[in-house]
C-alpha cells in the first residue's frame, strides 16, 4: 500500500526487533475466535486512475449538480473566491489536529480567534465559539443552553424554523424533559403568529425564531425579543442564510440572547449537505454556559501574544458528564474557510453580495408573480428566498422543469408540509444570472400554458 512507508522487508525486520515472527502475532492479545479468518469482503484495491474514473462516473449521475438551481432552504450556492480553497488546502491547516499544543498551533488558533471575532461582529453578539457541527445542531445546543440558564423546561418555537432543524431539536431534547412547542405561522404575512406568542409564560425558557425564516420572511426580531424578555425567557435566533448578515439588522442589535447560524454560505460548497459549520454566539454573561471550544488571548513569559483553547472546564474532556455539551471534534476547517471568505469579501463585499442576492430575488419574485396562475402567498419583506404558489402541484411542476428545461426550480414544500402541495420555495443568489432567472420564469410559464 503506497501510503504505508515501511516496505514489507522493513516490517519484517521490525517484527524481528520486537521479538515477533509474523504479523499475526501482533494480534495475540485478541481471543483467537474473534480473529477474522477471511479477508474482508470490501472491494479490492484500485489505482488512482481507476478511482478518479469511477468517482467521476458516480458524480456524473448527480445530474442536479450540473443545472442552474434555485434551491436554498438551508444550503446556499454562493461564489467562493479561489483563494479560499487554496488556503485551506495548505497542509499546515488541513492536516493539523485540534490545537491542543499552542506553541505549534498558533496558525489554527489565531484563525479561530479571528473567526470568533467575525461571528460576533456579524451577529452583533459578545462572544462566539469555535464552531458547532452545523446550524441545526447549534440550534439544539442553544435550546439546551437556554434550559441550563433559565432552569425552565418549556421552549416555544416558530414553526417557520427550518423543519429539519426542528426535527434535530426534537431529537436532542427528547430525554431532557424539555417541552418543545411549535407555534403557527401567520398565513398572510408568513411570520410567527401573534396568537402563538401568547403561549409565552414564566415557565418559558426560550423563544426560538429563524430570520429570515424558512419561508424567506424577515421576522421582527426586536419585537420578539421584547416579548420573550417580558416573561424572562431568552430569545434564540437561528439564521440559515448567513449572507443575510450583510444586509439585515443583526440579531444582537435586536436583543437576541443566543444566535445560531449555518455558516455554509460563507464560501463553503453545498456538498450534498456537509460538511457545513454551525455558528454559535451569545452574551458575555452566558460565556461559561457556551458549548464547544473557545479560543482566547494569552501571553507567554516574555509577554508575547498568543492564543490558546480556554475555559476548557466547560468541556467534556474535563467536566465529563457535567460538560456543557458532548461536542469534541467540531468543524475547524470549515470555520477556517468561512473566515477566509469573510476576510476576502470584507466589509464592502459582504454588503454587496447581500444586496445582490436581495435584488435578484426581488426581480425573480416580481417576474414570477406576474405570471398567470402564480402567486406569492406571503406578504412580509424577504431577503433572498420566497414561497411561490403554483396553479398545479409543485412537485410535479418542478420535476418537469428539471427534465424538460434543465432547471432545478426550487424546493417543493410538500417535502415538509403536506398541506402545501402547490407551494415551492425559491432561492436566488448572486450566482444566478439574469439569464437563468429569466429561463426559470419562461420555463414555468411554458409548463403551465
Amino acid at each position, binding site marked *: 500500500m503506497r*501510503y504505508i512507508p515501511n516496505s514489507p522487508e522493513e516490517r519484517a525486520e521490525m517484527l524481528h526487533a520486537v521479538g515477533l515472527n509474523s504479523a499475526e502475532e501482533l494480534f495475540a492479545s485478541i481471543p483467537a475466535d474473534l480473529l477474522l479468518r477471511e479477508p474482508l469482503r470490501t472491494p479490492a484495491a484500485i489505482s488512482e486512475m481507476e478511482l478518479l474514473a469511477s468517482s467521476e462516473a458516480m458524480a456524473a449521475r448527480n445530474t442536479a449538480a450540473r443545472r442552474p438551481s434555485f434551491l436554498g432552504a438551508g444550503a446556499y450556492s454562493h461564489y467562493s473566491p479561489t483563494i479560499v480553497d487554496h488556503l485551506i488546502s495548505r497542509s499546515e491547516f488541513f492536516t493539523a489536529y485540534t490545537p491542543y499544543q499552542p506553541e505549534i498551533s498558533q*496558525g489554527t488558533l489565531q484563525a479561530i480567534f479571528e473567526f470568533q471575532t467575525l461571528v460576533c461582529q456579524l451577529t452583533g453578539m459578545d462572544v462566539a465559539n469555535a464552531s458547532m457541527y452545523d446550524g441545526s445542531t447549534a440550534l439544539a445546543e442553544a435550546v439546551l443552553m437556554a434550559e441550563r440558564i433559565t432552569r425552565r423546561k418549556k421552549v416555544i418555537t416558530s414553526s417557520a424554523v427550518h423543519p429539519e432543524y426542528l426535527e434535530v431539536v426534537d431529537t436532542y431534547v427528547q430525554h431532557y424533559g424539555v417541552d418543545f412547542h411549535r407555534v403557527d405561522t401567520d398565513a398572510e404575512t408568513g411570520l410567527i403568529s401573534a396568537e402563538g406568542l401568547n403561549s409565552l409564560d414564566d415557565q418559558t425558557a426560550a423563544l426560538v425564531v429563524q430570520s429570515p425564516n424558512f419561508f424567506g420572511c424577515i421576522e421582527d426580531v426586536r419585537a420578539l425579543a421584547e416579548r420573550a424578555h417580558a416573561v424572562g425567557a431568552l430569545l434564540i435566533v437561528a439564521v440559515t442564510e448567513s449572507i443575510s448578515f450583510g444586509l*439585515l*439588522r443583526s440579531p444582537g442589535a435586536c436583543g437576541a440572547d443566543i444566535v445560531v447560524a449555518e455558516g455554509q454560505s460563507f464560501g463553503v460548497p453545498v*456538498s*450534498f449537505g*456537509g460538511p457545513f459549520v454551525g455558528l454559535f454566539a451569545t452574551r458575555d454573561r452566558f460565556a461559561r454556559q457556551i458549548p464547544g471550544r473557545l479560543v482566547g488571548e494569552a501571553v507567554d513569559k516574555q509577554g508575547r501574544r*498568543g492564543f490558546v483553547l480556554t475555559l476548557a472546564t466547560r468541556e467534556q474532556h474535563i467536566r465529563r458528564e457535567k460538560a456543557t455539551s458532548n461536542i469534541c471534534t467540531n468543524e475547524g476547517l470549515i470555520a477556517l474557510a468561512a473566515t477566509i471568505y469573510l476576510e476576502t469579501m470584507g466589509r464592502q463585499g459582504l454588503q454587496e453580495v447581500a444586496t445582490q442576492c436581495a435584488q435578484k430575488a426581488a426581480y425573480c419574485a416580481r417576474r414570477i408573480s406576474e405570471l398567470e396562475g402564480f402567486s406569492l402567498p406571503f406578504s412580509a419583506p424577504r431577503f433572498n428566498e420566497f414561497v411561490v404558489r403554483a396553479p398545479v402541484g409543485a412537485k410535479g411542476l418542478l420535476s418537469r422543469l428539471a427534465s424538460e428545461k434543465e432547471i432545478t426550480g426550487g424546493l417543493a414544500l410538500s417535502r415538509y408540509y403536506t398541506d402545501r402541495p402547490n407551494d415551492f420555495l425559491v432561492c436566488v443568489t448572486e450566482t444566478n444570472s439574469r439569464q437563468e432567472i429569466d429561463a426559470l420564469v419562461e420555463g414555468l410559464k411554458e409548463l403551465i400554458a
Partner: protein
Amino acid sequence: MSQSTNITKAAPHITQNESLIFERSQTGRKGYRLPPLDVDETPLDEIVPAALRRDDDLAGMPEVSEVDVVRHFTRISTWNYSIDLGMYPLGSCTMKYNSRLNEKVARIPGFANLHPLAPEEDAQGALQLIYELQESLSEITGLAGISLQPAAGAHGEMTGVMIIRAFIDARDGAGASAKRRTMLIPDSAHGTNPASANLSGFTVKTIRSTAEGFTDLDHLRELCAHGDVAGLMLTNPNTLGLFEKNIKEICRIVHEAGGLVYMDGANMNALVGVARPGDMGVDVIHLNLHKTFSTPHGGGGPGCGPCCCTKELEPFLPVPRVVKDGEAFRLDFDRPQSIGRVKAFHGNFGMMVRALAYIQTHGNDGLREATEAAVLNARYVAHGLTSDYDKPFAADPMHEVVFTDKRQSRKGVHTLDIAKRLIDYGFHPMTIYFPLIVQGAMLIEPTESVGRQELDQFIAAMRSIAREAVEDPETVLGAPHTTRIGRLDEAAAARKPVLRWKPKEAASAA
C-alpha cells in the same frame, strides 16, 4: 523564534509577526470583485425596510486586499505543525496520512456542487456513494445497520446511546428506559462518552479498571446487579491501547443484566480487517472516519461519526436512511421507531467521499496491511522506550501505547515538560494526561503513516529527553525553546478571558 544573543537587534522575521487581520485592515482595501448586478434594481426600501436593515455599516469587519489575505494565512499557517511535516503521535487521535487523491475526489464538481435537497433521481451518484460506504462499513464492523448522519464521534455516541434508550423502551414498554437509567462507563473512557450519555438522559456510573489495564469484571458484575443498567460504553482496544480480552464475557454480563453494549470505535485502527465489533457481541458503535478512515482532521474538524448497530437495533437509526431499491437509491423516511434526525440533511457527505476513497484505494488487503503496520509501529515504539520510561501496563499494546513520567518526575520533570521538550526535537507531542486514570500519562499512537527512520528518530528524541531530565532538567522545564512563542499562561487566559478582538478604543473602554 529564539535567537542567539548577537542578533537580538534583528526584528523577528515578519512572517513571525503577522498580526490579526483586523489590525492589518485599512479602510478602502478590497479583496473581492463581483459581476455587476444584471437585473433591474428595486429601491432597497421596497425590498427590506430600513428598520430591518443593518445600521452599523458592518463596522469593524476587515478591509484587505486579496494579497493581504493570502499572505496572512500563508504566514500564520507556518506556525502550525501538521501531518505533512512529520510524525504526529497523538494517542487516540489516529493522525495518519491524509491522501491528496481523496481531497481531489471530494472536490469533483458533481459532488461539491450537489445540493442536499436535490430530487433523489438527480442525486443518484451521491446516494450510491453513501450506500456503498454503508455496505463497506457494515462489512468492516460486522454490524448490519449503518447511519452516516452523525457529524463526529461524540455525535455518533449520542446517536448510539439514544438508540439504546429507544430499544429499551420498545423492548420493555414505553417509559422503561426512564427507569433503566444507568450507563456504565470505565474510568479510562474518553470524556465524550459520559457527556453523550448525559445528553441522552442517562446517569453515568464509573467502572474501575484493573491494575493490568482492563475492565474490572467483578466491578462490572457488581454494578450490573441492580437491574437498572441500560448499557455499557466501552472503548476497544481501550484507551490504554489494550485489547479488552474479556470482551465476550463483558458483553454477556451486560446483556444478561438487560443492558446493551456500546463500543467507542475511536480505536478501530487497531482492528480493521483483523477483528470485528459485531463478532464480539457489541450492539452499537461509532466510527471516526476522521481517524481510522483518514479524512483530514482540519485543525479540529470536520469529522464524520457513523453509528453502526446490529440488525435488531437498525429500526432505531436516525432518519432518513439511504436504501437501495432495485437499481435505484432512495431516502427512506418511513422509520417509525427511529430516534429521529440528529443533523440537517445527510451528514458530512464530503467526509464520506474521502472515506470511501480510502477504502477503495486500500482494498481489503490494504486495510489489513494498514492495521498491521499501525500496530507494529506502536509495538516498535513501546519496545524502544521501555528502557527509559515507565510503562504502567505489562500487556502488549495494540496501535497505541501508554507511558508515564514516573521516573522523570522524581527530578521534577513532568509529562507536560517532556511533551514540550519533544517540540524542540521536531515532533508533535503525544497525547498527555489522558487517560485520566494513569498519572502523568503519555499516550503514543504513531499510526501506520510513519517509517522506521522517523520512529527511530522519535525514540532517540525521547531517550535524549530522559537523559536531559537527569542531567539538565532546566532545559526540559523551560521547553519549548525553538518555537515562535513559549508556553502561554493558560490560567491567566481563563481567568480573564479575551475571546475576540475589539478595536483599540472599545477594548480599553471595556
